[in-house]
């Protein structure tokens, strides 16, 4: 396999990272050059017994000189911080229309799931020139989703969701690696990201085995696990109705206001007594250990689909 000497820049973010990287490289190269040259020249010129002029130190090489270069270094580093931080901040929030892919990291494999339910192991097909948002969680230890060509890396911590987004600019197959040590086969936990043209991606998606999409799986679970017993519209139990809940801000019993997003739904399922909705008794049992992360993602997708139905209903 021929060695690689340069890394492709396959996302919009990659170019910005490389600009900063090369900027720093040039700056460090110059500084290294100056230090090495100085040490070399001074060492040779002022070697013991050489004829170079000694005598008293010139006046300028003194305290002001030292304060001068200290301040210069300080301002240079402050500029570098601003330059790097601005690049980081501008790429934080994922655009709204991003394609949402659920990733579950498990000891030594990556499981990815597309919105329509198509599942893949150690591979991810995505369309080019379209923002993609990954919602990732881990089922055991800390892993790290690392795609060198995209300049993207994010630790996947069990018990909470990690989010990253990127927009591929080049088609092709790029290696996916696990960057956080996770045990025996940490080095085998590798995969491929296949960036395809929009049309190829669309028909690839249709050719996938007809795993129903997340919302349908969620609907079945909603009944199978007994959520509908309390939360269905028809039920007489005094429990919060979920239609149109997703995205709304919820008033809690202890006065706090929380937006009903993925995290809120996830925590309400696993630790119901954590954020109790105002006006309701904390009677909901905890599902921790009964629902795995894939099922929670399906239930969340179902609850989100309830929101869109009411909008369709009333517009």
């Amino acid at each position, binding site marked *: 396999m021929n060695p690689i000497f340069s890394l492709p820049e396959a996302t919009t973010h990659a170019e910005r990272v490389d600009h900063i990287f090369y900027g720093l490289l040039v700056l460090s190269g110059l500084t290294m050059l100056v230090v090495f040259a100085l040490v070399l020249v001074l060492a040779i010129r002022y070697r013991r017994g050489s004829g170079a002029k000694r005598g008293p130190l010139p006046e300028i090489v003194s305290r002001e000189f030292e304060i001068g270069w200290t301040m210069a270094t300080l301002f240079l580093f402050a500029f570098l911080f601003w330059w790097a931080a601005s690049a980081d901040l501008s790429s934080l929030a994922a655009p709204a229309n991003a394609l949402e892919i659920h990733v579950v990291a498990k000891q030594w494999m990556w499981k990815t799931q597309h919105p329509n339910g198509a599942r893949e192991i150690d591979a991810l097909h995505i369309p080019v020139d379209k923002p993609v948002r990954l919602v990732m969680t881990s089922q055991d230890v800390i892993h790290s989703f690392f795609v060198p060509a995209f300049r993207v890396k994010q630790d996947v911590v069990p018990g909470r969701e990690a989010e990253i987004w990127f927009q591929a600019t080049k088609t092709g197959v790029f290696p996916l690696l696990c960057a956080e040590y996770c045990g025996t086969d940490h080095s085998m936990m590798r995969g491929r990201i296949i960036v395809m043209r929009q049309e190829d991606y669309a028909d690839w998606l249709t050719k996938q085995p007809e795993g129903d999409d997340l919302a349908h799986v969620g609907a079945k679970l909603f009944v199978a696990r007994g959520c509908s017993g309390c939360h269905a519209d028809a039920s007489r139990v005094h429990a919060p109705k979920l239609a149109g809940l997703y995205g709304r801000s919820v008033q809690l019993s202890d006065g706090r206001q*929380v*937006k009903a*997003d993925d*995290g*809120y739904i996830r925590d309400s399922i696993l630790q119901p007594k954590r954020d109790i909705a105002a006006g309701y008794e904390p009677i909901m049992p905890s599902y921790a250990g009964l629902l795995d992360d894939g099922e929670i993602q399906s239930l969340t997708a179902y609850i989100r689909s309830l929101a869109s139905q009411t909008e369709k209903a009333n517009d």
Partner: protein
Amino acid sequence: MNTHNTHSRTIAWKLWRRNGLIWAALMLLLTLTLVFAYVPMGLVTPAAGIVIAFVKAGLVILLFMELAKARPLIRLAAMAGVVFLAVLFALTLADVLSRLAGR
């Protein structure tokens, strides 16, 4: 001989009075902590418990451990631990709280 032990007895009595007073203040603060714990004041209740704990700790450090009249070097050593502990708390909570807020 007796001048010696009357003198030392007055010293002992002065010590008992001084430390006894501090002890009484500590006991009072303890009961105060207990009482405040049962008053529902939202976030203020745990905060009150901790603030009173700081006051009690201050009393013990400054008076029992006699940091108040110790050499500046000793005071520096005492402060060093607390300062870097504050740094640990501040920066870790900066992450934890902003992670919770940002959910």
